[in-house]
């Protein structure tokens, strides 16, 4: 099967269209950048604290926000992270505030306790969904439902109660959040302990399943490191291409790379997506991928220039692009397929990362044909004219 047979598309003479498209995209990126006042940095770069909260029922986000503000949390950002029946996750983020940030996470925890619509029954003082293993173990030891002789068998008692606490809470942790004792009962815990648990604990309506705190210094360091990494990666790639090909290829390839990264960053600004550390990783991957694509075309140009020395420059470049076109489409197609799968099914944690790759694959493919090759053409044309 062949998607495209032998093609004879004159890509180079359509380079004006390419230039227009690229210019439009870049201008849109700049405009959006100015309009949004830069990128929306994620917690990695901006610092602050962030928790992912799993709720038993879909929470009213407005009420949640009001509660947080009423509890003294300044400027919280609340975002639906996952909204599936049975898995309602909300992301709460608060910015850094001046010098002392140590208590940021603690404040969110206490505000959540206030927000929780489920309250304890009579005598039920602890929330099973947020209690820690140590508390359960030490309570068990104090209450001693298995009636160990504490004076003699303190070590055995402690070991047994720690084991039971771990067993019961592992069930909870695997589920994230429990609403009934069914699954805990299923572990075969001693009925005396279960009975004590049922009277002591209630099921709160939420659990914090992930927390992040990034201090101001770490964020600043990361921004600097990222800039360095991008700079050195581009320089390293430029050096490699110049070594393997000639400097005109190297220059053209780097123009295409900068073009791609620019548009990818612009896409983040336009869609107002969060720019975080994995996104930078995606950008560096885009750089690698885009170059990969460009190199395949350049490799063909280099080959055709050597084997058919009489062929005019433009014709040779066009021939090379056409010869590699079906490969370009195929590889982009399979890569796009996996990236789309990542984008739609990969989950919320890496959604922005997948988005960056998605933009990168499309732009990277486009740029090797409509940016890298024309730039090389212009450079080589001038060099040939000079020689004559």
């Amino acid at each position, binding site marked *: *099967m062949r998607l495209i047979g032998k093609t004879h598309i004159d890509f180079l003479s359509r380079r004006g269209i390419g230039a227009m498209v690229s210019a439009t995209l870049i201008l849109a990126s700049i405009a959006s950048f100015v309009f949004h006042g830069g990128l929306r940095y994620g917690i990695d770069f901006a610092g602050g604290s962030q928790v992912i909260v*799993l709720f038993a029922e879909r929470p009213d986000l407005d009420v949640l926000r009001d509660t947080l503000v009423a509890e003294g949390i300044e400027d919280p950002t609340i975002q639906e992270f*996952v909204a599936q029946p049975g898995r309602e996750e909300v992301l709460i983020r608060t910015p850094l505030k001046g010098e002392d940030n*140590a208590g940021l996470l*603690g404040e969110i925890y206490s505000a959540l306790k206030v927000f929780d619509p489920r309250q304890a029954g009579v005598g039920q003082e602890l929330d099973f969904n947020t209690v*820690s*293993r140590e*508390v359960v173990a*030490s309570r068990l*030891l104090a209450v001693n439902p298995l009636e160990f002789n504490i004076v003699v068998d303190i070590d055995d008692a402690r070991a047994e109660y720690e084991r039971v606490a771990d067993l019961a809470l592992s069930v909870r*942790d*695997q*589920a*994230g959040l429990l609403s009934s004792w069914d699954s805990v009962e299923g572990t075969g815990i001693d009925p005396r302990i279960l009975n004590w648990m049922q009277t002591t604990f209630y099921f709160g309506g939420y659990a914090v*399943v*992930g*927390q*992040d*705190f*990034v*201090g101001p*210094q770490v964020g600043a360091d990361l921004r600097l*490191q*990222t800039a*360095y*990494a991008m700079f050195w990666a581009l320089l390293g*790639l430029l050096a*490699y291409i110049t070594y*393997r090909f000639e400097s005109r290829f190297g220059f053209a390839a780097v123009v295409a790379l900068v073009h791609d990264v620019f548009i990818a960053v612009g896409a983040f600004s336009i869609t107002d997506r969060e720019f975080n*550390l*994995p996104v930078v*990783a995606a950008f*560096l*991957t885009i750089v*690698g*991928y885009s*170059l*990969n694509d460009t*190199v*395949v075309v350049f*490799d*063909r140009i280099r*080959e055709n220039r050597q084997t058919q020395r009489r062929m005019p420059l433009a014709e040779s470049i066009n021939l090379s692009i056409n010869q590699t076109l079906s490969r370009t489409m*195929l*590889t982009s*197609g*399979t*890569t*796009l*397929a*996996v*990236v*789309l*799968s*990542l984008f739609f*099914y*990969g*989950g919320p*944690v*890496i959604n922005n990362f997948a988005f960056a790759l998605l933009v990168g694959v499309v732009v990277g493919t486009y740029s090797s044909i409509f940016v890298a090759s024309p730039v090389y053409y212009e450079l080589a044309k001038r060099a040939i004219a000079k020689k004559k």
Partner: protein
Amino acid sequence: MSRNNLYKFGLILAISIFCLFLSYPPSEQINLGLDLRGGIHLVLDVVVEEAVAGQVRTDMGRFQDLLEDEGVVPSETILDSDVSFSMTFNTELLRDQAEVNAINYYSSYNVNLSSNPPTLNLSLDPAEQDLAKDAAVRQALQTIRNRIDQFGVAEPVIQRQGMTGTRILVQLPGAEDPERVKNLLRTSAILQFRLVQEGPAETREALVAAAGGQLPPGTEIVESIPETVNGIEIPPMFYLLDIVPIVEGGELKDARLSQDELGLPAIGFTLEATSAQKFGEFTSTNIGRLLAIVLDDRVQQAPSIQARIDGDGIISGQFTLEEAEDRSLMLRSGALPASIEYLEDRSVGPSLGRESIRQGVLAAIIGMSVVIAFMLIYYKGAGINAVVALALNLIIVMGVMASLQATLTLPGIAGLILLIGMSVDANVLIFERIREELDLGKTVRSSIDAGFSKAFSAILDANLTTLIAAAFLFQFGTGPVKGFAVTITIGIVASMFTALFVSRLLFAIWTSTRRQTLSI
């Protein structure tokens, strides 16, 4: 099949079985990152300036005691800054005697003299300050390591970031309750037994008045912890204590959870033999006086000395069971030389990690099915070749990751998925080249040879550029991003091997059956 091809086939089979063996079962052999497995990731900073200041303060008190023993009593002693202190004397002769002592016993200090009034100034040498800072970080590292060991977390990572840095990275896979862990690590746990000179008093002013309007040299005021008795909160009391402790936490042989006479949780302790002797002598000569037990600069309790106390005792003072347990753990594992600040805290619960794995696997299966279907439809027989290469690729990546003990993170899974799409590239390059050669009317065998040799330079250059980008990623990345760089790097190398070696062999086996057609 020729003998040569048979060897190659055997080699490939052996590699696949070996990699499968290494990585099976994946749930045990593949090291999962904190983002997938759940756990606590902390970066903390040791406030080293505090450690230096603490050392200067202790040295000042010790020097004062030394001078008093020699009969060279300063009229005033004050801390000038975190790194220096001054002593004023009534005569220049006394000052000069003090100077001799300072030079003999405190050589890490720079000594300056001034007259009017005769003053001796000692400031800690900058090189010594650096040593003290470095020692503080190393001690903090050791203390944190001890505490985590005692806390019982499997495979913790506790590292100093950089050779001279003040930051410490702590990773605790599978640990929960980050707030408790943070408290456990942050608490200084500095225990001191100090003699009470005056007090308790209800206010600072009352205490100063009781001491005669002025603090005697070598003493300072310390607050007690606020207590709650029968639900009524009693405000903290003030004590005037000797700066130099009788015994310190570092001299403990053991600390453990215990009970006081009322059966409430308390901390039991045992002193080292030499300290026990010193403590015994001290208590026997000070019967009837108050002994303050100071924990982290707060008086925990101040009982009067009833009799000689040797090596053992308990500290009570309104602990919960959990507090008493944690405190004794801290005392056993040593004190922090300075306070610590948390720069970063990233904790993932196991349910979030599990959800991430589920979604990652789903995305991988969908992406892989699409790619496999596409390759089979598009390249027919040769497509099988590409699919075999793809499968082998994944097996090799898992095997290498297992044997290198590399960590698989969520971006790492994304890297694997991306790899599924990208690694067919080498095969696509070869297949397209073979098709071109076939179109030129060449025979199957020579088309295959030409296809491989002509595609080689493009494959090499294209993959090396991606490798270079991945190398920079690895350099710069932290945990999750590093995991991405690792899978991409291993995957690219593996895909070059499978495309150039395995695919080639499969074609060779195909043509050796003397078929003159090629399904491509």
